[in-house]
């Protein structure tokens, strides 16, 4: 397609859409009652010219309009604009078989079209419902008619949509007849629709300004409804939606709308006792029609005792309820009887009864419903205003309740049910049957080694030790924990304070360190056994390291246990008041607390890596991503606060949040990709990895190691400076930075850092997504990359909300920046931290896309959500998939519960 042609199409489309929008706006203007719209003006003019009169009525009518002038104009404008956009994408989208059809734009446009349609329908429903209830006090007849129409539309639509009723038996013939009428392609239909529109115009003009109760007004409304139906018909025909579907979608609900709407209209005009009689009679009529349309497969087989008992019982319940509520007993009885009748006739009894019984059952139900409709007096003006006022809240909440029930409650109940079932086949019958199997699905989840695999811990007979005790992250983490514990001990001796929880933490750590020492001993004894893990994670491959770790763990374990023992003994003797007298106190407040936490984080990461299985993996994801995202987000928010270029930095960090998980995973695939050494590396990270390896293998690697050692020395000096100033933050931070860099320097000096190999074409690559056991960390990195921005934005807002008086007062009192952060800002934003953490936990538990794209659960990286998808849809084990979904749900519930509780608490 040439550029010119594209532009031409675009312009023509835009113009046509504009015309459409203009027409719609004019209609809308009239509908919402704008004074002096162009149409009204012209109509008035035309009428006065042909001598129809009626202009006096205009003034009266305008006086009663409910919306103020500006609002109405705005609404009309809004509708016009929506119609323009709608029309634009409709025409652009190639949904009409017109000359505007361009395949390139159709996908894009149809998506937008759907979005606009959804938004418009929602908005129209919302605004429309409000306007509808406005009529309760102003125009009761209109209100009642429309309410009836809506009820009829929804009821008939739902029944038909669920294939419970059918249009007349030969509906295809009826449809064929209409087909013939409009059989000349979509452009004839366009004319058809336009003509119908013109007819509506004409009728409207004819009846405009006529007094409310004149028949021709209603004739106009009938014509408008008919015209709309015709136009819709044309639309659906042009869309080539199967005739059957079109009938279901349009005609049956519209029939319901007309029938029940007419009933509502009649009832709004009548007073007792005619009102009740008419209601019951008309309801019976509508019921009879429904009964006649009822699908044969659902026609009830009337079992008299059952439905009579049900009816009487529920009628009594209805009376009881209304007695308690102090309302009219008769309406209660009718409502109860209606529900009882429906239950008795359609739930308790079998199906397949004769048509007469179906008609009878529906007739009685309809009569009861109609009687309920017609019971009571016509409401007074006050009552009508009350209806309007009371409706506001429910209307506002209705969409939320609807989506909650449709999107959450109903699927949840169904999933819960399905999780106790299995789909089975029966001999000789096609189709799937659900069979109740009790807890079998849950049993399958929890007994399956692919959910819980602790093989690494139980595999003793081969002489191997759990890989945890040979892994570098664990060794590094434990070392940091022990160093920090020593510093906490020193700090505790100075301050005499004891961090809460240390009475459990310290002995626990001691026992763990002893256990680690035991395994190191075992490792040394069984020297020569290959470590299960690769070079990169195996820190203790040389005997020197093994003995060093044995001694470290042994000393630390004994020391910690001794400290804990004496601590507890003192606490036991002297009670809570004498805490200051403890000789061994642990004060984790301060920078070494950070080292402690980081070391613990590393050690726990290594701990998770020693397990396999879907559920462990999910837990690992939750642990790592939640903590890292929260800490990073908080750190960035705090550091960037009021810094220069704050907004730029935050925008950049926030940006990944705008990328979908799938998109992010694809981006990172390109980062992680590996090509055999010797071919061009297309993966960014592997390219860098090989470059680092080249440097480590070069003759100058000692220079790099020396430089790193310099950095280590620098951090140690910071540590020392902190020690002299009694600033534990500097001490801890320095050590925390120094240790890993020391490790890197050692690897670099040893020529083992990065992609190294004996020959140039044989360097080791880094297989991020496939190399166990830390491959999952690289997948988690993607989610962290996305979610850090989220945490940061929330924290940033919370930090800015901390009253500056507090901070200034603290500063006057001589608080350092870190003091202000830990003692003022963090306590203030604790609720926010809670919200962010819980939101992250829920997000992470549900992670699916990233795993699906990166590994699809291969390489031991399966998580619950992906496993659920695989079971439910790939393997079509719906029961097992549902059980997994329920496991996921149950693990999310406590988190949400805690969140809600705190919110209530705060409220």
């Amino acid at each position: 397609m040439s550029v010119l042609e594209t532009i031409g199409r675009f312009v023509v489309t835009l113009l046509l859409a504009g015309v459409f929008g203009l027409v719609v706006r004019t209609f809308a203007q009239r509908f919402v009652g704008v004074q002096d719209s162009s149409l009204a003006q012209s109509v008035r003019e035309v009428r006065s010219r042909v001598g129809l009169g009626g202009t006096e009525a205009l003034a009266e009518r305008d006086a009663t309009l409910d919306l103020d002038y500006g609002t109405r104009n705005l609404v009309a404008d809004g509708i016009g604009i929506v119609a323009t956009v709608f029309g634009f994408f409709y025409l652009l989208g190639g949904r009409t078989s017109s000359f505007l059809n361009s395949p390139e734009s159709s996908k894009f446009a149809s998506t937008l079209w759907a979005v606009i349609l959804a938004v418009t329908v929602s908005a129209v429903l919302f605004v429309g419902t409000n306007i509808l209830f406005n009529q309760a006090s102003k125009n009761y007849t209109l209100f009642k008619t429309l309410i009836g129409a809506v009820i009829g539309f929804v009821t008939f639509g739902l029944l038909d949509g669920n294939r419970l009723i059918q249009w007349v038996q030969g509906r295809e013939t009826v449809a064929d007849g209409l087909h013939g009428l409009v059989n000349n392609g979509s452009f004839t239909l366009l004319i058809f629709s336009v003509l119908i529109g013109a007819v509506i115009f004409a009728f409207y003009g004819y009846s405009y300004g006529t007094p409310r109760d004149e028949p021709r007004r209603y004739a106009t409304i009938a014509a408008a409804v008919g015209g709309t139906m015709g136009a819709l018909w044309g639309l659906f025909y042009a869309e080539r939606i199967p005739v059957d579907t079109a009938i279901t979608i349009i005609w049956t609900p519209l029939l319901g709308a007309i029938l029940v709407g007419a009933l509502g209209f009649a009832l709004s005009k009548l007073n007792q006792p005619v009102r009740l009689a008419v209601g019951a009679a008309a309801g019976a009529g509508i019921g009879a029609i429904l009964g006649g349309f009822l699908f044969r497969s659902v026609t009830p087989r009337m079992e008299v005792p059952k439905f009579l008992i049900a009816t009487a019982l529920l009628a009594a319940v209805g009376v009881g309820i209304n007695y308690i509520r102090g309302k009219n007993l008769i309406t209660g009885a009718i409502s109860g009887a209606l529900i009882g009748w429906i239950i008795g006739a359609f739930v308790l009894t079998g199906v397949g009864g004769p048509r007469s019984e179906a008609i009878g059952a529906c007739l009685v139900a309809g009569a009861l419903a109609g009687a309920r409709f017609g019971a009571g007096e016509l409401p007074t003006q006050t009552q009508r205003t009350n209806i309007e006022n009371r409706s506001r809240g429910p209307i506002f909440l209705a969409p939320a309740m609807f989506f909650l029930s449709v999107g959450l409650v109903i699927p949840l109940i169904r999933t819960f049910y399905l999780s106790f079932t299995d789909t089975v086949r029966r001999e000789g019958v096609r189709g799937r049957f659900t069979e109740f199997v009790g807890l079998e699905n849950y049993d399958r989840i929890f007994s399956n080694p692919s959910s819980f695999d602790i093989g690494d811990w139980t595999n003793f007979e081969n002489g191997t030790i759990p890989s945890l005790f040979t892994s570098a992250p664990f060794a590094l983490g434990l070392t940091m924990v022990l160093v920090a514990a020593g510093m906490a001990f020193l700090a505790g001796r100075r301050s005499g304070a004891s961090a809460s929880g240390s009475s459990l933490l310290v002995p626990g750590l001691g026992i763990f360190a002893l256990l680690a020492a035991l395994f190191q001993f075992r490792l040394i004894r069984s020297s020569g056994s290959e470590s299960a893990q690769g070079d990169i994670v195996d820190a203790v491959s040389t005997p020197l390291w093994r003995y060093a770790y044995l001694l470290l763990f042994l000393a630390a374990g004994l020391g910690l246990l001794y400290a804990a023992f004496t601590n507890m003994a003192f606490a036991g003797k002297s009670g809570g008041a004498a805490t200051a007298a403890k000789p061994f106190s642990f004060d984790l407040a301060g920078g070494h607390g950070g080292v402690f936490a980081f070391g613990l984080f590393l050690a726990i990461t290594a701990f998770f890596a020693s397990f396999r299985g879907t559920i462990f993996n999910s837990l690992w994801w939750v642990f790592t991503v939640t903590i890292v995202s929260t800490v990073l987000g908080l750190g960035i928010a705090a550091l960037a606060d009021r810094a220069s270029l704050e907004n730029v930095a935050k925008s950049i960090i926030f940006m990944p949040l705008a990328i979908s998980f799938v998109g992010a995973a694809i981006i990172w695939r390109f980062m992680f990709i590996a090509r055999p050494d010797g071919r061009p590396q297309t993966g960014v990270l592997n390219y860098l990895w090989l470059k680092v390896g080249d440097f480590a293998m070069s003759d100058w690697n000692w220079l790099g190691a020396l430089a790193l050692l310099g950095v280590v020395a620098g951090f140690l000096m910071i540590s020392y400076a902190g020690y002299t100033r009694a600033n534990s933050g500097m001490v801890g931070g320095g050590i925390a930075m120094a240790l890993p860099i020391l490790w890197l320097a050692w690897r670099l000096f040893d020529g083992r850092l990065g992609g190294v190999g004996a020959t140039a074409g044989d360097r080791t690559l880094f297989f991020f997504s496939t190399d166990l056991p830390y491959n999952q960390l690289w997948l988690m990195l993607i989610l962290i990359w996305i979610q850090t921005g989220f945490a940061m934005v929330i924290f940033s807002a919370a930090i800015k909300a901390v009253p500056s008086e507090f901070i200034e007062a603290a500063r006057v009192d001589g608080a350092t920046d870190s003091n202000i952060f830990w003692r003022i800002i963090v306590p203030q934003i604790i609720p926010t931290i809670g919200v962010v953490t819980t939101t992250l936990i829920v997000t992470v538990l549900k992670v699916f896309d990233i795993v699906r794209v990166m590994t699809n659960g291969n390489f031991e990286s399966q998580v619950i959500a992906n496993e659920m998808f695989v079971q439910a849809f790939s393997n079509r084990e719906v029961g097992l998939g549902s059980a997994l979904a329920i496991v996921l749900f149950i693990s999310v519930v406590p988190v949400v519960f805690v969140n809600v509780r705190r919110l209530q608490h705060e409220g």
Partner: protein
Amino acid sequence: MALPFNSLTNVGLRSSPERASIARAGGSVGRAQLLSIAKQKDRGRMRLSNFKSLMALLFAFALVAAACSGDDAASDDGTEEETTTTEAVEESDDAMEEEDDAMEEEDDAMEEEDGAMADLSGTTVTISGPENSERDIAAIQGALDVYAAANDMTITYSGSRSFSDDIGVQAEAGTASDLAIFPQPGKVADFARDGFLVQVPDATVSAANANWSPDWTGFGSVDGDVFAVPSKADLKSLVWYQPARFEANGYEVPETWDDFKALADVMIEDGNTPLCVGIESGGATGWAFTDWMEDLMLRFHGVDVYDQWVNHDIPFNDPRVVEVMQEILDLWNTEGMVFASGGSIATTPFAENAEPLVDGTCMMHRQANFFAGNFPEGTPANDGSEGAVNAFYFPTVDGTKPLLVAGTLVSSFRDAPEVWAVMEYMTSAEYANERQAIQAADAAGTSGFLSAVNGWDAGNLNDLEASFLDIFAGAESSRFDASDLMPAAVGSGSFWTEGTAAVNGDKTAQEAADAIEASWPSN
């Protein structure tokens, strides 16, 4: 149509500033409600002129519509003509009716078919399938378009890497395409037994039977009823290589498995990499490994054990199965044996191995005939030239020559005449010819497409492709791809994932086989 089109454009242009003025006026009223009545009257006048132009627009619109509907009327005439011819056929039927009752039935069938053909215009049929390379999609769509154009209908094919997952979701949700191209008879059986698929009507079945041998049509029948018809046949027991490169290095095409391994060792000694292997395939990662398993199962243990294995008459962790798995893992884990362009076997898509095979990075690649579709455009096939590719039969173990085959089956989720018409077309020789022609032209060489349909035009095939047909014809026994026949939970589930785990070294052959056995569905 040109004239009203232009006039419409003009009218539209004229109206647009006025439209803007309306919007402005409306907006100003919204902002300030204290406008004087006199001003309102002004605006009223302005809007009157606006109303006139609106009417003019509507009129223009109606004109355009009328002009276009004129075209429709013309095409209507055509339809009428068709109707007349149908009547003529009916008349002649009437004449025949007097002659023979049996004949009458046949004529009725014809008449129905004619009626169905007439009904096809304006209908739409959607098709989804697993073939997703650009070349495949273009050829499938192209072949379908030929039929669509002839019948004035719309047929769309969409190929997806994750077809085997998606179709399950779509079937559950009731949004599956009209026709689905299944590469797995096992999945067809699953879907058919679950009541998702529509049974193929007898007319279409007999059309398929006329075109394909009973072996092939049998793959689509489930418990005695036909739910799918074959559309494409693949030959899996092939090893791709470059004859010129073999010649240059003095390598001989191996006849037996031992020769094959010995040759590989020689290649390693020469400093060449014998094999390219890659098993990554999105949600279907691992299937290329299962192909190796199946080919070697057939060769090591024969067709009977193979059948028992497929039908779960022997457990998946039977020592014979584990032995074959171990054989493959040992081969692949031999130092210097495998080149994988993704760095490791488990991260390399099989299609990415085409280039290294052509440029000599590796010497051989075991893959089905459709691998040809991945060669760089214009790669010559089996013509003796430098750089030409060829394929040899995957070596035997004991001299018997079993053949591993696969193919695609078309099944339907919707019962409508146009759907059956398209299905019948897809199982016909015409479809194979069209697709082969398009795909071969696109590839400028070997198309990668193969069919076992009777009577397709051999003129479209090059020597290599013709040799594939010879292999088909000369096979002693052929078996369908086992993983495609096993239940979905295994065949497109654990067999793939556990196989991948074993290839990646996360599990031993025994552990993987145990896990697959544990996942075999109980019903």
